[in-house]
């Protein structure tokens, strides 16, 4: 195969990979009343319709609040756990780390069903605590893993030096460890935020008639209709994701954040 043919093949494959994401933007500016591509005219009417859609807007507010709650809880749980795993010397350390990150290896459809069955009995379906717990199921493994990696890359001896100079453990953590792993903490915040905001399958099992999340509301909407309102909502979602990635990149550099 010649060089030109190979490059043409790569271009076609890149087009295939990116087309569905890119096409959402022109469609969101469609003036048609139903989905047709290419649109016959351009307007912002579907963004206006999105803002005026009470169900989707409530779901969007829920998702943003949920992402913040999940991020805060994940940090509170994962920072101590990561410290224990990265610094502690006790038997079963590897096994406990494996257990904490294990949910990422299992299909979300199975995890969601497992939560539904237990949560139904506990009255947690359609509740805030149920949703936060369900999102922690996937957020905690990510947070623990990123923070353990961040702690592992700290320059050796700094914490020991502070401790040998008489700083109590809490001071060592506050004055030495925490400032040094701040990039890792920022990366954790961004990743957990994205994971929670995009989580769909597990949420589908746990949401209730009165409390739903944005991806779930969008999923239900696409099930019944496919008008360009979804494209406007999708564009908002993509821009939200992009914003978090850009903030992360500006704060600490994308490569450092993902541990590259």
């Amino acid at each position: 195969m010649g060089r030109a043919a190979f490059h043409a093949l790569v271009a076609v494959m890149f087009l295939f990979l990116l087309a569905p994401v890119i096409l959402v933007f022109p469609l969101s500016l469609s003036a048609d009343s139903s989905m047709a591509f290419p649109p016959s005219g351009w307007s912002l009417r579907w963004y206006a319709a999105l803002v005026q859609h009470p169900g989707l807007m409530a779901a969007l507010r829920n998702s943003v609040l949920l992402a913040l709650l999940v991020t805060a809880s994940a940090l509170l749980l994962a920072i101590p756990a990561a410290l224990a795993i990265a610094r502690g010397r006790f038997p079963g350390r590897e096994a406990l780390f494996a257990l904490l990150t294990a949910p990422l290896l299992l299909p979300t459809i199975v995890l969601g069903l497992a939560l539904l069955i237990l949560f139904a009995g506990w009255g947690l379906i359609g509740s805030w605590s149920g949703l936060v717990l369900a999102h922690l199921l996937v957020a905690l493994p990510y947070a623990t893993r990123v923070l353990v990696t961040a702690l592992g890359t700290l320059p050796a001896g700094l914490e020991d030096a502070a401790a040998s100079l008489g700083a109590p453990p809490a001071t060592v953590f506050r004055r030495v460890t925490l400032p040094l792993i701040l990039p890792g903490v920022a990366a954790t915040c961004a990743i957990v935020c994205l994971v929670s905001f995009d989580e769909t399958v597990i949420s589908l099992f746990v949401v209730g008639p009165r409390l739903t999340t944005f991806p779930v509301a969008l999923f239900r909407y696409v099930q019944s209709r496919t008008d360009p309102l979804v494209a406007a909502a999708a564009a908002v979602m993509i821009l939200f994701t992009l914003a978090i990635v850009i903030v992360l990149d500006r704060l600490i550099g994308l490569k450092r954040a993902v541990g590259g």
Partner: protein
Amino acid sequence: MRRTALLLLVPALAVNLLVFLWPMLNLAALSFRDALPGGGIGTVLSLGTWRDLLADGYYWSLLLNSVVVSLIITLAALFCGYPIALFVHRAPARWRNLLMVACIAPLLVSAVVRTYGWLVILGDRGLLPSLLRALGWVRPPRLVFNEIGVVVALTEILMPYMILSLLAGFGRLNPVLEEAAASLGARPFTVFRRIVLPLSVPGILLGCLLAFVLAVSSFITPSLLGGGRVPLLATEIYDQAIVSLNWPVAAALSVIVLAVFGVALTLYGRLSRAEA
């Protein structure tokens, strides 16, 4: 220090127990109960659910369909992802970062959004059918609400995982080897077949494992693009749990999905060891 370390782990482990270990064990146990009419669940241990499930040809065809569709998707993702991975691997350093972002970016976009993107392209009034009609094809074949749409969309959605796995495996690929082969008179395709392809087998195996298990368990895309006409394990689990309220059957089907995962993982382990 040991006591402190364990104390620090307690909150995270408590949450893990509450939302992971306990629910998963409970799920497995539930498949050994009987479903009673009206969504009730029997109180005694029984093999009834498993007996009915394994005796019903429908569930066997569901399993077969899931595995076959996932294998097709895996191979398609490999064929579509390989050229991209090779191109990115060989790109000059200043382009490589940008190209990597283009490969990873779709991963950050929700599966609902990307599936909707495919409805825009493949849907009855979408881009591709419009194009085909404009080219003079009066009644182009339907591309959504059947296996075609599910395969096309899931191939695209799983491609980033395949590309990343392939790139991780390309570490052993050394341009000097390719130049040596070429300078000894090997033609480009021979260099690819005899040097590049064998060296990238570990990446291919890892990418195929990931794509396969993710395809078997994916729900959003088959549900939206299949329109209820593409019966797969994952969509059946959801229907049994939410629509039919038959939790024991949904639990048993979940155990079957996990068993498929286990088989895929074992096969991967065997193949990688044989290759190494």
